[in-house]
């Protein structure tokens, strides 16, 4: 099974460096980053400002860097005929938590644009085991026709703002443009809470686990 067979490289423009307000960050900051402990699962890459953001609260922050440790190696080293159970086993190994672990917030950023539908289903099925009712899933997406060939570095900065940076020499690939309904169908138990169209060809989604 291919993890990202859509990545035909084409010459076109896609978002590069943006800074934008994020209503979703405001919502989950208000909900989780107050008194009391929260548990955050970040599927993205290490980012200084994001860690600093969560370090202001009493939280446990799990960082998986899914692209570097799971998606990208498989793109490089595996052929298209991998079996589903291999991917499932790899996901289970990559995301191994104690049975009692329950996340309050999952940060998926733009990673779903770089995974096949089946991979997203397996991933979210695994993550759902560590969610509780009310767990929020935060996703970002570009609305344009093209996206960078690798996930952008999206980080939280001060006061409900996100910074979006992609590699200067990054090529563009076709944007799969997954609508919320398609995302919901891949993630049983998650329902769309908010969808924000942010301008500059950026969109963000906040899902809640029921």
């Amino acid at each position: 099974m291919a993890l990202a067979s859509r990545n035909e490289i084409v010459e076109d423009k896609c978002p590069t460096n943006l800074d934008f307000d994020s209503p979703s960050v405001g919502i989950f900051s208000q909900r989780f980053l107050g008194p009391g402990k929260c548990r955050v699962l970040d599927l993205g890459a290490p980012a200084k400002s994001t860690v600093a953001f969560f370090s202001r609260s009493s939280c446990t922050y799990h960082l998986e860097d899914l692209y570097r440790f799971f998606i990208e190696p498989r793109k490089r080293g595996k052929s298209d005929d991998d079996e589903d159970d291999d991917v499932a086993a790899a996901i289970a190994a990559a995301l191994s938590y104690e049975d009692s672990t329950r996340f309050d917030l999952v940060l998926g950023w733009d990673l779903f644009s770089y995974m096949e539908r089946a991979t997203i289903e397996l991933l979210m099925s695994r993550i759902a085991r560590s969610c509780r009712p009310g767990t929020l899933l935060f996703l970002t997406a570009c609305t344009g026709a093209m996206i960078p060939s690798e996930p952008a570095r999206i980080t939280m900065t001060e006061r409900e703002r996100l910074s979006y940076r992609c590699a200067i020499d990054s090529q563009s690939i076709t944007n799969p443009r997954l609508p919320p309904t398609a995302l919901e169908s891949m993630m049983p138990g998650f329902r769309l809470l908010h969808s924000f169209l942010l301008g500059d060809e950026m969109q963000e989604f906040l899902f809640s686990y029921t």
Partner: protein
Amino acid sequence: MFKKSEPEDGRAEPMIHSSEQSMLSTTTRSRTTATIGPSIQISGDVTGNEDVRIEGRVEGTVNLSDNVLTIGKEGQINATVNARVIFVEGKVEGDLKGDEKVVVQASGNVRGNIVSPRVTLEDGCKFKGSIDMDVEPSVARASGSSSRNEKIADIKSAAGGGNDHSSGAGLGKAPGQQ
């Protein structure tokens, strides 16, 4: 009223010139750093009362609870680590407990869990694991300061200066819309 106190026996106190005082305090404050070089491999426990820089390989445990540990770019650690401050420039497989802070530099590569009140992951570093920041620095505990309340105040400030988002304020205008 402002008379200097004198020793009861009337003898003058030993005088220390400012330069000597400076030297004395420098000597007192100076921290020596022991370096475990790149050709050295240690299997077992590393403990001590001075700062340590590891450029070699260590397997086991490292316990420097009052000191600074730097895992240099050549350093490779497969150990459970406890130190006051931990800087990671090299590779670590194992859990890190920093009583004050843990900093993973851009060249750092950590697979393990971090427990520390202050954690910095520099952009570009490799990290896979969890970070537990629900611990108070020992210094704060000693002085009785309430870092938790300060943290909450910081969060409110960072979350929009106390604006209420729970009533839908978070659905406000998107960037670019006036």
